[in-house]
């Protein structure tokens, strides 16, 4: 198994490298990054400073050489300085990453504790009213645009009813649940729906298998069958899904953070995009990529723990 893990890591690094290649080629197509500094009124910068900036970014050298410089910097941990913010990229990301993590983890937890049990329940009560209700809830969650949900929630809960705040992170030290609730709910609906459906189908499959029927025939209690035998096997697909869900949350946070004024890296990425701030953008993308690879690796380990029958191919 160690060999497989190692192979996985190596493949991961290759993927990361190719991803950086894609990112870099896109960046050089958006124009000279130095132009951000010039205010609308005309010249704001000395030509010497202009050249100095160009040297720092190695803009005088051919593009592949620029890429080589860039990759070697990143490998050494130097993500450069954000052009618009004049701060080291890692520091900027570090400041705002916890906020996104809080939001994403909250949404994930919410999605899991709502989606999985409801999925099990839906499977065991197949065809009844509640099954359809929950499936309807899931269908809705996967069909509504996230930003629309967010805006409508703000409108109802913040502006009209005034039960909850309308945005930002709030001032509570570690977390302010009041401020976290609406964004987390908005973000969690889609994952909850996915979990619900996946758990439901997985449970249905497992409930249909021979050994479950055998267990029932042997006279094992219904609940024991469901939890001891069925759920343990039905849990694999939702676990696989977790990685996809967590990564889908990345896309979701970009929008939710914008709508709810949540100071996280999703919003930071959008701001960096519009300001053509390549170092910051690249830093965020690479960090995301690395995190994702980490998650996949962890998932493989969890797989092995839960089901020794699974072999890697």
């Amino acid at each position: 198994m160690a060999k497989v893990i190692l192979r996985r890591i190596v493949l991961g690094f290759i993927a990361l490298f190719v991803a950086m290649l894609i990112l870099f080629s896109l960046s050089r197509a958006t124009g000279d990054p130095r132009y951000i500094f010039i205010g609308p009124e005309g010249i704001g910068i000395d030509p010497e400073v202009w050249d100095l900036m160009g040297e720092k970014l190695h803009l005088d050298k051919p593009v592949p050489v620029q890429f080589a410089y860039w990759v070697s910097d990143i490998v050494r941990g130097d993500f450069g300085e954000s052009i618009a913010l004049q701060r080291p990229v890692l520091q900027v990301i570090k400041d705002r990453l916890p906020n996104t993590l809080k939001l994403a983890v909250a949404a994930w937890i919410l999605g899991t504790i709502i989606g999985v049990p409801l999925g099990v329940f839906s499977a065991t009560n197949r065809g009844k009213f509640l099954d359809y209700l929950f499936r309807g809830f899931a269908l809705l969650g996967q069909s509504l645009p996230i930003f629309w949900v967010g805006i409508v929630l703000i409108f109802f809960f913040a502006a009209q009813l005034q039960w909850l705040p309308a945005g930002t992170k709030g001032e509570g030290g570690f977390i302010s649940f009041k401020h976290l609730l609406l964004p987390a709910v908005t973000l969690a609906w889609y994952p909850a729906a996915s979990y619900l459906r996946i758990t439901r189908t997985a449970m249905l499959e497992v409930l249909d298998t021979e050994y479950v029927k055998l267990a029932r025939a042997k006279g094992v209690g219904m609940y024991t069958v469901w939890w001891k035998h069925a759920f343990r096997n039905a849990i694999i697909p939702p676990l696989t899904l977790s990685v996809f869900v967590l990564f889908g949350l990345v896309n979701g946070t970009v929008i939710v953070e914008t709508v709810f004024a949540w100071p996280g890296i999703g919003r930071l990425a959008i701001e960096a995009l519009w300001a053509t701030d390549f170092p910051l953008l690249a830093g965020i993308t690479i960090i995301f990529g690395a995190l994702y690879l980490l998650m996949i690796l962890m998932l493989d380990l969890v797989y092995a723990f839960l089901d020794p029958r699974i072999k890697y191919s």
Partner: protein
Amino acid sequence: MNTPITKKTTENKIDRPIWNAPIRLFFIMRRYPIIPMMVIGLLIITAIFGTWMEPHDPIRADVLSRHIPPFWMEGGDTKFLLGTDALGRDVLSRIIGGASVTLLVVTASVTTGVVVGTGLGLVTGYFGGFVDDVVMRIVDAWGILPQLLIIIIIVLTFGQGLFVLIGVLAMLSWTGAVRLVRAETLSLRSRDYVLLAQIAGASNTRIIFRHILPGVINMVIVTATLGTGTIILTEASLSFLGAGIPPPDPTWGKMVGDERMYVGAAWWTSFFPGIAIAMVVMSGNFLGDWMRDRFDPTLRQL
């Protein structure tokens, strides 16, 4: 005397009287997802015949008729059934107009993405080796990049327009298709009938298209259908962030996004397009699920 087996017995007619027909029809129809099909059908009709169905010009602005409420509300006008938006354009006409854009974008991007993905999947799955490694590395690399951000970067680089949008949305679906088709191809490749065909001297192309592709195609269609929802929602998100199709052409996502600051004052401008999006996406998802159950329940893990 023996009655021939093929002779229709008239006694059955008593069991199936004519007045039972609607109920029997109902039970037959229950097997098919009627409402989603109707919604998709409506979408297609609206998309094709939209220009004749629109009561007003969807892109002509008239600032003086700004934010007129729907006709059943106070201040509404039957001329504008669902009200007008911030630039005085009829919401209903824009929804109809948006239907054709939605249909075009979705069909084109899903088709492109899935076709490219399937092709690549077949090739890499069948031939394996170096090609397989290279393609899979690219697929992995693409997979770890945050999709929405990369898409916006590409749109900003190459400009905003219909073709860029289609291309960029196609990139959402190709990796999924490649992985699935490749996995299926790998498993099908070792089947007996494929080995026999190889022994018989069939060319690789023939084997791929005649033997492997049919086994894969069901899954491809299901994936494609299930992917339409994601594509529509992503287009909506792109328009919301300002990176979609430039104005004044209407797309539903753009309508919701542009009017978002008027949710309190003029809710109809974002509500109705939102409903349209939701209904089409729901229908797509539902249809996809149904097709999957129909074709091959073992695909449930998708």
